[in-house]
């Protein structure tokens, strides 16, 4: 047999059904096509053979498995209408061939459209993978040459010209440029890259020549991982589905029983003619739509997770998406989550230039984190500084050296010894320390000439994100191992509700558990020590810049190192979840109202449905629903 698609079957059946459609239009004028019964019989028989038979076959196979589904309803509805009409034709009664034919035609159209839309929705994801380039410019034997992407290996040195796509993940070895990473992280502003920075495959190199070493290829690249994650999320289950799953398994048999009951009530108890009773029963079968119940959640999940991935928020499964909606408290880790995790110079007291010059001269060779904060500041001001000599590194206190023939030091007050310090500097020092800043003294030739205050500062958007969370009625909590003073200072800068300080790394999960007493908790973190808390929390949100174990433990991953992602994750989850609820509502309402009306419950007040009207209703329901999902 030639295989024809559902779309082709639809057109063929529609053409075959056209005489019956014409007759329906002519009916009000009392015109009847000559030999209508025979035409209807022949065309409907063809439609049944070509289009309805597969539904009968599938329904029968399902029946043997003790299963019933949409196909069962279609098969029962069309076969009852067809075989009754056959019987009616032979015995000279009114026929209902057009009902059998039209139900088949429209069910086919629905199936064909659904197939097409489903494939275009899942294609959106594979398009993500198509973002990859096909070739890379790889250094081999001192020359760059084009190599197919599959052949690129970890450790290869790759060149990317301005305007080209970066083929795989790696670390820059030469060149500075800006990179558009929006397709992977959702960040719309180009990100600047220099030697040592990481680049992500499939992002676009904007303005500089870039040489980098491949660190991740094939399945391991960020993009491939994202696609894999979103795929899993799209097929995952949301707990709300448990109800519909249970319902949909009994739905079809229940509808069949309802149809039989309808027939019995009309025929046996109300004394209606058998034909009338049968039409009501068939209507019940035809109007019921179990698909809407079964598809309400998956389609919303599919769209929601793909959309959020575009915004740089990866939701790993439907459960997380549902749980986020019940969250009452959002708990943040401090270092690396609320703060940047890198100390920076916040204040310079004294002659700024002079103080920084001396400090830079002494710290230039130091690897202490505080030293890199000082050097970053000096670089920012493009300061020139002299070469220092006679370095003396005093462990845990600071550095002593000679600058331009004068003794100098940078470090804590313990290094001050014989140095003089003005009273106003002392007051400033106390003030800065009260703000939970680390204060470094800079001394030159027997005098403390200034102070440098250093602090791990909150990320730019932290305060905004927290205020938006609070505006949503959520309680915000910060957990940190820092002392109370430092923690409180950061906490009040970003406006957090509650600060829990002095928490040992292994206690984080316990604190989350304690907070769960008051409602569901989301935990936002990035470090290895956050993994237990991420797992214990109802929803774990991991920063994408965080450690692999944190990302593994979290259910939601923020691709941008930005707390606004938490707000976005909540927003998208809420939207998607509301969409699921709306879909379920319509699916229920439609069946709850449609079935009784079809059964003739409202006939008493003159509301009786013709089969064609029912078909029309069913269709508009199914299509409205398809359109809502995919467009």
């Amino acid at each position, binding site marked *: 047999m030639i295989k024809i698609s559902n779309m082709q079957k639809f057109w063929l059946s529609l053409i075959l059904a056209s005489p019956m459609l014409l007759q329906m239009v002519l009916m009000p004028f009392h015109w009847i096509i000559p030999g209508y019964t025979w035409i209807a019989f022949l065309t409907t028989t063809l439609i049944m053979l070509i289009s309805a038979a597969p539904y009968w076959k599938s329904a029968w*196979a*399902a*029946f043997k498995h*003790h299963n019933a589904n949409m196909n069962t309803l279609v098969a029962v509805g069309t076969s009852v209408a067809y075989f009754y009409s056959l019987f009616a034709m032979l015995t000279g009664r009114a026929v209902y061939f057009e009902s059998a034919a039209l139900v088949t035609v429209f069910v086919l159209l*629905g199936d064909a459209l659904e197939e097409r839309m489903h494939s275009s929705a899942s294609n959106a994801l594979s398009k993500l993978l198509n973002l990859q380039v096909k070739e890379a410019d790889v250094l081999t034997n001192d020359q760059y040459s084009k190599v197919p992407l599959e052949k690129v290996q970890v450790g290869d040195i790759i060149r990317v010209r301005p305007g080209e796509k970066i083929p795989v993940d790696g670390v820059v070895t030469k060149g500075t440029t800006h990179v558009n990473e929006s397709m992977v992280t959702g960040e719309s502003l180009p990100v600047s890259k220099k030697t040592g920075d990481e680049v992500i495959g499939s992002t676009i190199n904007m303005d500089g020549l870039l040489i980098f070493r491949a660190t991740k290829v094939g399945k391991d690249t960020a993009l491939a991982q994202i696609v894999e994650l979103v795929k899993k999320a799209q097929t995952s289950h949301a707990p709300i589905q448990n109800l519909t799953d249970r319902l*949909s398994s009994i739905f079809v*048999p229940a509808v069949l029983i309802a149809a039989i009951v309808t027939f019995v009530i009309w025929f046996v108890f109300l004394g209606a003619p058998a034909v009338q009773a049968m039409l009501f029963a068939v209507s019940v079968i035809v109007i019921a739509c179990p698909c809407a119940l079964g598809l309400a959640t998956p389609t919303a999940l599919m769209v929601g997770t793909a959309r959020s991935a575009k915004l740089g928020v990866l939701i790993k499964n439907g459960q997380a998406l549902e749980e986020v909606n019940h969250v009452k408290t959002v708990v943040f880790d401090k270092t690396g989550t609320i703060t940047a995790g890198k100390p920076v110079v916040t204040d310079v007291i004294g002659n700024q230039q002079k103080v920084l010059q001396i400090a830079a001269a002494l710290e230039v060779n130091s690897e202490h984190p505080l030293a890199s904060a000082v050097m970053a500041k000096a670089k920012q001001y493009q300061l020139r500084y002299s070469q220092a000599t006679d370095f003396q590194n005093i462990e845990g206190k600071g550095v002593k050296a000679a600058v331009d023939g004068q003794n100098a030091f940078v470090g804590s007050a313990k290094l001050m010894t014989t140095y003089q310090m003005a009273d106003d500097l002392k007051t400033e020092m106390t003030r800065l320390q009260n703000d939970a800043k680390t204060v470094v003294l800079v001394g030159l030739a027997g005098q403390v000439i200034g102070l440098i205050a250093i602090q791990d500062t909150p990320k730019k958007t932290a305060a905004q994100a927290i205020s938006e969370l609070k505006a949503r009625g959520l309680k915000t909590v910060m957990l940190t191992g820092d002392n109370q003073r430092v923690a409180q200072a950061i906490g009040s800068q970003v406006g957090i509700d509650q600060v829990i300080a002095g928490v040992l790394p292994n206690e984080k999960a316990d604190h989350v558990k304690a907070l769960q007493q008051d409602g569901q908790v989301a935990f936002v973190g990035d470090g290895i020590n956050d993994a237990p808390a991420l797992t214990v929390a109802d929803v774990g949100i991991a920063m994408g810049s965080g450690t692999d174990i944190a990302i593994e433990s979290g259910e939601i991953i923020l691709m941008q190192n930005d707390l606004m992602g938490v707000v976005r994750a909540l927003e998208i989850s809420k939207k998607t979840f509301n969409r699921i609820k709306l879909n379920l509502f319509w699916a229920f309402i439609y069946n709850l109202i449609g079935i009784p009306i079809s059964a003739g419950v409202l006939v008493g007040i003159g509301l009786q449905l013709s089969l064609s009207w029912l078909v029309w209703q069913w269709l508009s329901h199914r299509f409205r629903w398809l359109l809502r999902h995919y467009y």
Partner: protein
Amino acid sequence: MQLVVLAISLGLIAFIIWWFFGSHEEKTSDAQISDNQQESTIVVDGGYSPSTLVLKKGVPAKVKFQMNDSTACLSHVVFEKLGIDKDLTKQKMTAIEIPTDQATEFDYACGMNMFHGKIIVKD
């Protein structure tokens, strides 16, 4: 006449309840193993047969879905845990690789979650 119809209807309802909701034995089958590779075919026709397939742990497995059903209901097969959502209508046989590195169960279903099947990985 009325009474006969009533009796038949009640009988029909009883049959529907027994047929669809009663407990019925499910077909289970084991995969064929050859050359350290196991392969099995699941026929898709108004459901999955066998609906429960047992695979041996540690042997690379390929499960083929043979599509004998042309209606939209069963056009996709979804393995929730594996993130697989495959369109079965593209060709007659669609092979899916199932990880067998640990003993576990993979539930699968059609796109609308009306039909269910299960793959069990055991020692």
